[in-house]
């Protein structure tokens, strides 16, 4: 099996993309905390359910951003192929 420089770079890019998706841990924890706190808040004050839900969703969507940055980096590494072989 011959591996030339181009193949090696593609392989390393795929590994890098996988590593970039470790960023998914953070938003998972953050969104879970937000959802748990939201559930607790609804339990304490069921009357404010709609306000709590919209605030929770907004906060979760903002917390998601760092994970999405990781996703963008991974997608760029996989499909845009920013590193040419002629290096």
């Amino acid at each position, binding site marked *: 099996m011959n591996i030339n420089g*181009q193949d090696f770079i*593609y392989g390393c890019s795929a590994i890098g993309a996988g590593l970039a998706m470790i960023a998914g841990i953070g938003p998972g924890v953050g969104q879970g905390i937000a959802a748990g706190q939201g559930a607790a808040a609804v339990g304490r004050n069921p009357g404010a359910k709609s306000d709590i839900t*919209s605030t929770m*969703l*907004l906060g979760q*969507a*903002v917390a*998601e*951003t760092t994970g*999405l*940055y990781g*996703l*963008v980096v991974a*997608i760029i590494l996989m*499909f845009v192929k920013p590193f040419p072989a002629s290096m």
Partner: protein
Amino acid sequence: MGMMKIPMIVHEPDFMIHGVLKMNIFGQELWITDTTIGSWIITAVLLPIGVYARGKLKTATASDVPGAFQSALEMGLEALENMAQGILGGNARKFVNYIGTIFLFILFCNLSGLFGLRAPTADYGVTFLLGMFTFFIVNYQGLKNRGFGHFTSLFQPIPILFPINLIGEVANPISISLRLFANLLSGVIIMGLWYGMMPWFAKIGIPAALHVYCDLFSGCIQTYVFCMLTMVYISDKME
């Protein structure tokens, strides 16, 4: 992608932006892509509805009984005004037109994945432009309401924080545009992988659940978040 040969995949999953027509203008290559055509279709759908709705609300009197369309229209408008009122307070009337416009455009773009189009918001060119609109509106409001204080506020509370404040200002449009783009792109990629790589029996029924999450839920939430954050940024500059 042409040089990757993986024998397991039946055919290459397809979620890229495709060029339809190439033009040469002033020596520059200009492509009409899926995104352009999708946003034209969405504009063509939205414009007649908008003109019709405007006529309907303009001519409505207090005495006649509203039909289903007019009732839905009034409910939607009221929800939009309440949303703007909750964040911008007394200034809501000045911005409710713009917020409503981008709300409808982004919502229809996000939902267009359900109708077989490639969502135009899954193209960074579109969302970056929307983010830049937000950036210019926010900074125009800052200049208008604070004058020169708009620049000196970057040195608050202590001057050494200037670089961080500057990065914070510039990062706003990038972060809201990337958020919208990446959410929609992940939906498009998941749907493309599912339709491209799964055997035929997995394409019955299951994609419906994926469409509900990736297009409907994610699309609606992200539309709401984009408009909400635009208003939050504007209201920061209002006082």
